[in-house]
């Protein structure tokens, strides 16, 4: 029992590591992780400063960082299963004795960890280009919130990745959903600008709560970061609960329909 559990943990670690190795050789992801966050920071902080709202600087940096994290997870974790399908390794993973979701968790976690680079890039850009001071009110809560945000993003990525491979339209979905999710999560400008009826939609999105948790921890938004962290944990669990039947559906598609093969 314990050795089996250790074995599964080893699978998570191995999947984490091999995903990192694969990512390191992929220039597209390097661009997503390093370049895009810088551009978003320049755009976002730049427009606030131009509008004379310099006190929004840190808000914009965090938002751009969240965009970076979100983007990285969407493009990497959202496409894991699709990538395995195209590479012909999906059925190998299904045939292996390890449950397929364990592999996915390892790979998605790896991407989430790498997406931290995006956050680091936005802070660095803010500091170097705009000389924005990094003035975080509650650093400990900030770090915990960041980690929980990554957990929620990972779980969200698992849902999206399963959804994409089941609908066979990952590319189009990513293009269409990417910007609305930035906006609905308040990553570009505060949510208060949006009409009220959009709030329930925003409340289902991991990036919006992550952004809020980081904002409160940084002292930019009034509120208790720990409460929002609790919400992030709950949200992650909900995502995982949604992901479970989707994983089962994928396995079903492979084994029952034989329709996830590329010839």
């Amino acid at each position, binding site marked *: 029992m314990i050795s089996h559990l250790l*074995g599964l943990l080893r699978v998570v670690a*191995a999947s984490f590591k091999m995903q990192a*190795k694969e990512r390191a050789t992929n220039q597209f992801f390097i661009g997503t992780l390093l370049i895009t966050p810088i551009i978003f920071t320049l755009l976002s902080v730049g427009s606030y400063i131009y509008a004379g709202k310099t006190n929004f600087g840190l808000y914009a940096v965090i938002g751009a960082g969240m965009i970076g994290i979100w983007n990285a997870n969407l493009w990497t974790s959202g496409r894991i299963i699709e990538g395995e399908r195209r590479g012909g390794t999906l059925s190998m993973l299904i045939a292996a004795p390890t449950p397929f979701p364990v592999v996915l968790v390892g790979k998605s976690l790896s991407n989430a960890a790498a997406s931290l680079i995006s956050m680091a890039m936005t802070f660095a850009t803010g500091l170097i280009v705009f000389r924005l001071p990094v003035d975080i009110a509650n650093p400990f809560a900030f770090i915990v919130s960041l980690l929980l945000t990554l957990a929620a993003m990972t779980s969200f990525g698992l849902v999206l990745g399963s959804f994409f491979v089941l609908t066979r339209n990952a590319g189009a979905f990513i293009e269409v959903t990417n910007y609305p999710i930035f906006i609905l999560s308040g990553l570009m400008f505060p949510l208060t600008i949006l009409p009220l009826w959009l709030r329930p939609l925003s409340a289902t999105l991991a990036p919006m709560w992550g952004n809020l948790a980081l904002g409160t921890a940084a002292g930019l938004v009034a509120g208790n970061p720990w409460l929002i962290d609790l919400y992030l944990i709950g949200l992650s669990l909900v995502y995982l609960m949604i992901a479970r039947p989707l994983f089962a559906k994928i396995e079903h598609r492979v084994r029952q329909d*034989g329709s996830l093969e590329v010839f």
Partner: protein
Amino acid sequence: MSAIVIENLGRNFVTTTGTIRRTQKTVTALDNVSLTVEPGELFGLLGPNGAGKTTLTRILSTVLLPTSGRAEVLGLDVVRDTKQLRPRIGMVYGGERGLYWRLSGRDNIQYFADLYLVPPEVSRKRIPELLELVGLTDRAEERVEGYSRGMKQRLHIARGLINDPDVLFLDEPTIGLDPIAARELRTVIADLHKAGKTIFLTSHYMYEVDALCQRVAVVNKGQIVMMDTPAALKQLVANLEVVEVECLSVSPEAMSRLRAHPRVEAVHVDNRDQIQVLQIQAPGGVGYVPEFLQLLDGASIQKVVTRQPTLEDAYVKLLGKDAISV
């Protein structure tokens, strides 16, 4: 206990075509297939493209569910007992897919060692052994994308052996390999058989099955046409002689005239670049060569030879016009 037991196995695929007016089509990939393979046997499944070889291999390796019938591997049901069965079998599909191209050969094997829950102290010893077995020790640290087809295929085999499986499924392992690489791979397969593994091999190369397998099942359109030893298969055509005629253009009329000749049992046409090679199977065929050539009047005949029948001729005889050129 038999290593593999298959009873009345069937598999259909439902495919939909068209976006607006969607029409469903059912393809029968396997139709009432039954066979058994004994422990330690090297069993061959021989058939043309689309015969159902991959479908059967996928079902036996638990990746696909049958539509009807049942199959057991090592006494375990391939549908229900996947948890116990998966750690004990290995599978290798032909072709270049199914590997992580951006990773090194060693990383690929190491990853599957972890996926198969092979204890680290075991895999530390086994991985170098497997790399040695398939002759990739010197190239193990290179990325797979730089490998030749033959190297990828050998890496596949090493990967499929990482859990030291009792039964190994090899689906057209030598497909697309040059003759030398294919021969090297066959040596590896023969060695594995000597080491006591039960091997289920599919192929559409007659020669391969003849050289490796103890028993062979010929499948066509999802059905088993014949099952016996390669020698018995050859016996099918023992009394035949084969007349090979190379020509430039044979008309359909000439072909039907030829097929109607009372002595002719089968005619198979190989299209090779600019020329067509007719393989005419006929008992005592040598004596009838002049008659055959007369029937083929106007076909620009280049060369005529007579030869003893091979396993390939048995295959042609069994499958008739479904046999494809190899």
